[in-house]
């Protein structure tokens, strides 16, 4: 377990009375891409928000490089090397593209990702850096959100529902960046409803069903029936053999 970067043990999270995550454990190793899949309401986003520090767990442990971070403020977790690209992108709407990246870089650690490096990664950005982010398309906004998280030079990048509201071709392009990010030594935890995209880039898959772990494994070893079963639950998987597309 020495190479485990992020270790989650027996995590239980409540939204008020509702139990969103029930006794979930997993680990993310150095240089790995782990994809959490699960239907809408399975608790995936809550799990990522809790790892980032925006939500407090009821019980369980979250360790980053052997340090317990459960009680740590979100901004301190960024300092340790955990960055979340939140669901819905959450850009700073009154600011330009470049200012969004500058905010991300203000507390950045040393590392491979500078704003210039992000501009190389997304070659359309330099021409449009002075534009307000609301002038950008959904896919472009998602790219800015990823850039804003990367300039902090995280060791672990948490990606929440990158595909949300984007055309399949755009989603494909964004996921094509994942290997390049990993090549810079960043480990990635992806949460995704779009099973096909999420599984393609993953080294390992972790499926959640109603807050509980329903399946874990290496993509090559898993059949689509197994994934459907774990994604929808027993009855639904047998009744409607649809591909795993939410909403």
């Amino acid at each position, binding site marked *: 377990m020495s190479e485990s970067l992020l270790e989650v043990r027996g995590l239980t999270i409540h939204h008020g009375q509702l139990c969103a995550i029930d006794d979930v454990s997993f680990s993310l190793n150095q240089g790995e891409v782990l994809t959490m899949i699960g239907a809408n309401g399975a608790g995936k986003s809550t799990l990522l928000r809790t790892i980032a520090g925006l939500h407090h767990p009821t019980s369980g442990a979250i360790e980053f490089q052997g340090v317990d971070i459960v009680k740590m403020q979100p*901004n301190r977790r960024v300092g340790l090397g955990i960055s979340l690209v939140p669901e819905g992108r*959450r850009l700073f709407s009154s*600011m330009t593209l470049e200012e969004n990246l500058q905010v991300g870089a203000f507390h950045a650690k040393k590392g491979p990702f500078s704003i210039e490096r992000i501009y190389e990664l997304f070659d359309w950005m330099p021409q449009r850096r002075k534009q307000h982010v609301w002038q950008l398309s959904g896919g472009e906004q998602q790219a800015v959100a990823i850039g804003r998280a990367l300039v902090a030079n995280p060791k672990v990048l948490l990606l929440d529902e990158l595909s949300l509201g984007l055309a399949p071709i755009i989603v494909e392009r964004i996921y094509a960046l994942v290997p390049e990010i990993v090549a810079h030594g960043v480990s990635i935890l992806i949460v995704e409803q779009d099973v096909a995209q999420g599984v393609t880039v993953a080294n390992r898959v972790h499926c959640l069903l109603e807050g509980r772990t329903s399946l874990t494994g290496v993509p090559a070893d898993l059949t689509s029936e197994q994934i459907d079963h774990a994604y929808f639950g027993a009855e639904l998987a047998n009744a409607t053999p649809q591909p795993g597309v939410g909403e």
Partner: protein
Amino acid sequence: MIWLNVIVQGVLLGGFYALFACGLSLMFGVLKVINLAHGDMAVVAAYVAVFLTPHLHIPGVWSFLVVVPLFGLIGYVVQRTLIQKSIDRDPFTTLLVTFGLSVVIENLLLEAYTANGQTVNIGSLIAKSWHPASIIYISYVSLAVLAAAVLVLVLLQLFLSYTGTGRLIRAVADDREAAQLSGANYRHIFGIAAAIAFATVALAGIAYGMMTQFAPTSGGINLLFAFEAVVIGGIGSLWGTLVGGVALGVAQQFGAHLNPQYQVLAGNLLFLVVLAVRPQGLFGKKTALS
């Protein structure tokens, strides 16, 4: 020429309102806190300038050099303790807490310094003015206050636009959680915003004390005018606050010219018209209301 004078005096008054209001606007824009003790902080600053800085052998005119940084510090501390604690509970608590603070301050001032009117003594400077045309007199003090207001707004705008900390303040105002995810300690950023708000209102309080008499309860009416300036200009826009302050000042001078009793009424009428016709304010965005 009479009307020109009304406008000139209104603009001068408006500069003071803008100086008074910009901290209120910043606190609301960033912390989402309406500081009901904002006006009282200005009055406290004026009392400090009258009663405490003379002990340091600092003349009244220059008292702001000590009082403004002091109030910046007080703002940071009050934010990180009292106001943050109430933000952590819920938004209504901040209203109650700042209202309570206002009551406490007014009564402590009454207790310590009585209800007598005071002024910040600036010697013969108070009576000096520039006389550009037959009936137009521009008081040096009012002109200096207008210049200070414009300078403060320009500096604040530059700070928010071009410094890292300024950008973080805007980031926290846009989306507190997303700012935390970018590594910002939002409580510290709140503290800085409150420090700026307290420092600017302290400057406004001293300016007020130079221009006219004040008493422990002077904060309330000025807070009302500051609210009106912010709403007329549009919440979240610094230049809007300046324009709102000037519009309010001109409206009040216009009312006062018709009948001295109409001064406050005319300002309130302008405020109501703007609320009815353009509720987001002259420079505000519609989204600020939602």
